[in-house]
């Protein structure tokens, strides 16, 4: 019982950290984008203000139960991902659910939320939402291929399907997997572009074309939950990448440096890229990223 309580406490702490860091990254994203575009840009805490404003909206509408619960589905995914990914290597404040966190489990739980949210978006009856959802799901099939290729390469190279196992490998050998399995890293990072849905892969929620797609009917507290979930998920994904490829982190400071460095890659790429159509995006993912993924598997088999 005590363990469960501690777990819950740890989960709350982790959630808060992830929320703050993720929101900050979102704000920094806007700031950096503005600076690149020669603007002053909003303050770095702009996302917090937006989130608070959304949560304090006096009214909200929904189109039915699934729409009502869609954000909850999304949140489950974010939090579960966060809880399964080991945040810090040796720290009792983040005990989480490290049950030898399994990569395959992660791959599937990460699709739970999008599907739930897609159901919510579907129930709105807004055609734009449905179009956005189909684009999002299609794109997901696109980037999952290099991502899985990279993960399978890691799994077969190091004979483990758990994140902690891979972290242990890095701790033991002293080299980050990013250097010992470079192709897997490249493929995984390219897949990350798709996961973040930043430009050029932002056709899912194209604001002017689709009226922001899946969330077209969502406002107020629902949007708030989605926004926080997105922030948490951003942090969780970045932490996962850091754990897998960058050797994990011993304390929060290093973690933030590493995650932010990683975050800059898709962010900066997005700033100089126009938008792909869905099928172009899918083919892009099945092109070079998958090629690197196959190279990674080859490397894993040979070495």
């Amino acid at each position, binding site marked *: 019982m005590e363990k469960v309580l501690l777990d819950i406490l740890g989960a709350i702490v982790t959630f808060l950290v992830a929320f703050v860091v993720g929101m900050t990254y979102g704000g920094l994203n806007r700031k950096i984008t503005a600076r690149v575009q020669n603007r002053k840009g909003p303050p770095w805490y702009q996302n917090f203000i937006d989130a608070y404003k959304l*949560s304090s909206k*006096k*009214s*909200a*509408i*929904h*189109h039915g139960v*699934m729409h*009502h619960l869609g*954000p*909850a*589905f999304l*949140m*489950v995914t974010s*939090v*579960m991902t966060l809880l399964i990914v080991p945040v810090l290597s040796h720290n009792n404040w983040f005990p989480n*659910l490290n*049950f*030898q966190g*399994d990569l*395959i*489990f992660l*791959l*599937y*739980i990460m*699709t*739970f939320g999008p*599907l739930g949210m*897609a*159901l919510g978006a*579907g*129930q*709105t*009856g*807004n*055609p*734009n939402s*449905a179009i956005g*959802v*189909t*684009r999002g799901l*299609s794109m*997901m*099939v696109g980037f*999952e*291929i290099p991502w*899985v290729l990279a993960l*399978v390469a890691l*799994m*077969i190279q190091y004979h*483990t*399907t758990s994140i902690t196992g891979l972290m242990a490998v890095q701790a033991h050998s002293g080299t980050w997997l990013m250097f010992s399995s470079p192709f897997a890293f490249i493929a995984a990072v390219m897949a990350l572009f798709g996961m973040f849905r930043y430009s050029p892969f932002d056709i899912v929620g194209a604001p002017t074309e689709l009226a922001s797609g899946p969330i077209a*009917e969502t406002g*107020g*507290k629902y949007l708030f939950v989605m926004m926080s979930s997105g922030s948490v998920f951003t942090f969780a994904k970045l932490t996962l990448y850091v754990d897998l490829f960058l050797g994990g982190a011993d304390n929060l400071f290093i973690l933030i440096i590493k995650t932010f460095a990683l975050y800059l890659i898709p962010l900066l790429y997005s700033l100089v890229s126009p938008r792909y159509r869905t*099928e172009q995006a*899918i083919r892009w993912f*099945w092109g070079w990223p998958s090629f690197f993924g196959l190279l990674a*598997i080859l490397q894993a*088999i040979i070495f």
Partner: protein
Amino acid sequence: MEMIHIIFLIFLGGAVLTYFSGKISKVLQDIFFLASVLVPAYLFFAYVGAGREATLSLGGITLIWGVNHFSWLFSLIVLGLGSMAAIYAIGYMKGKKRKGYFYFNFILSIMAMMGILLSIDLISFFIFWEIMTWSSYLVTIYNGHDIQRIGIKYFVFSAIGAYAMLMAIVIVHHLTGSFLMSSMINFYPNMSLSMQIWIPVMFLLAFGVKAAMMPLHVWAPDAYSNAPMAYTSIFSGALSKMGIYGMVIVLVTMINQIPQGFWFREVIAWLGGITAAIGTLWAIKQDDAKKLLAYSSVAQLGYIITGIAIGTELGMLAGLFLAVMHALFKGTLFMVTGAIEKQTGTTNFNEVTGLIRKMPWTFIAALLSIIALAGIPPLGGFVGKWMLYESLITSNHYLLVIVIFFSSTAAFLYCYKFLFGFFLGQEEKEWAHVKEAPAVMVVPMLIMAVMMFVLGTFPGIILKPINSGLMDLGFVDSFKHLWESSVILNVWGNHVVLQPILYWIIGIFVFFMIFLTWKGFKTTRYVSTKDISSSGEVPADDENLTFSVGFMQPFMRAVAPAMRRQIDKYYNGIADGLESLFEFIRRIYTGNGQTYTIYVIVFVVIVLLFKNILF
């Protein structure tokens, strides 16, 4: 008179009684129908355990029936799903024509499947196999004359498979002098190499047809989608598993005995993987729910085939677990489709929308099955998928795992399409009158949905019989070593404890559910799906705003090159070529007496010319 005899007699007598009682009273017919499915099911589970045998001597051949743990597992699928589908069928068939015909074949199918599972000798195996084929064929063409071609395609494929099996059986009989399966298996290593290859190939042809394995799957989408839905749920859920059952026996007990077996299994595993990918891609393209589910069945059977073709313990566990799960969720999904067909009269996604508020229970069943189908935790499908990936990776099938994963991810597309097409989207005026399906249809669906949930948390419930079945086939006990009641492990020692995951998922979900519902509860309101932000436009009542035509267009464009080639076309080409050849042969009979006389003379001359060679 063994209990097995009694069970078969009840099936047979029940089928006939059901057929004829329809002339007296429809209610009586329903009662007879239910009884002749449920009573044998009860008798089987209550009185027939592993090790029971019964014999019957026919035509100089002794037919032997018996149960082992492995066939007991499949009997669970057949009778469990069969009972559910039977209850469902009562509601589904209400008010339809030719009920007796349907019930008769339904019962016979179940009897045939049980017969296949209980058969110890090959002849009764074949007999029941053929009975299963024709009874399912008769149900497939239940819906009328438009599907004559489809039915014949199904029957021809089945017949080719079955005849290949018959050949194998008689060759085995020639070689061993016995029709017993065990003697075939024991004699297998002593056969010549060509026989070692051909006999499994011929068996696999039969099983591959039923299990809809590429490239023998072309009948499946049409047949599954055109049979009445109450039947399709066992057609896809249980009947296809007979192919899996046979495959397991052939692959595990026979092929494993020879060194070349590795390549065999490799080929089958890849065929399974390709089946999964192709089935998934085609499922995404479909606009009709039945078609979609049919292709999806093909894809899911591909996973199962891959799992059992890998042949490791974990692979077998995965394949068989997925087989059970597939029976559950695909059975439910076909029932859902049937319920919607019953209530609305169509199953086309482009026509039906927004039923979620009209058919909530059906939606819940569909949602749970879809989550299980997609392999998303915490439902049962995930456990199977997890084991499948683990087994693929640990047995060094690196590219296959990518293929499987691709199809599994792409499956989300059709999963979503199914849910969206029927339940979500605009609530159109056209369907305002739709009511929830009657309880007799909804309850079986919900029972199965709950089963999926339970199996996701406690996979041990079903892994236990699977394990004992596998031990019957010669595998070592994998309890504690690969699985526990709610834990699954892999050979590297990584394990997933499913219960805490479930609790966490439910806990977080409930928390945010409460958060969303409670926060500003009074100002949260429901608005109709006509009240959407479509650039300020107010859609009229009869204006259909639902987006469903060309639903997955972008994805289809991306994969268009892969879908240009259809195996169907090649088969059609062969069929057309044969028909014209037959037409040519037919023209030998010119209808002219003089020609015929010339034939006689020519025959005599030719035979006389070649007499030294002939005699």
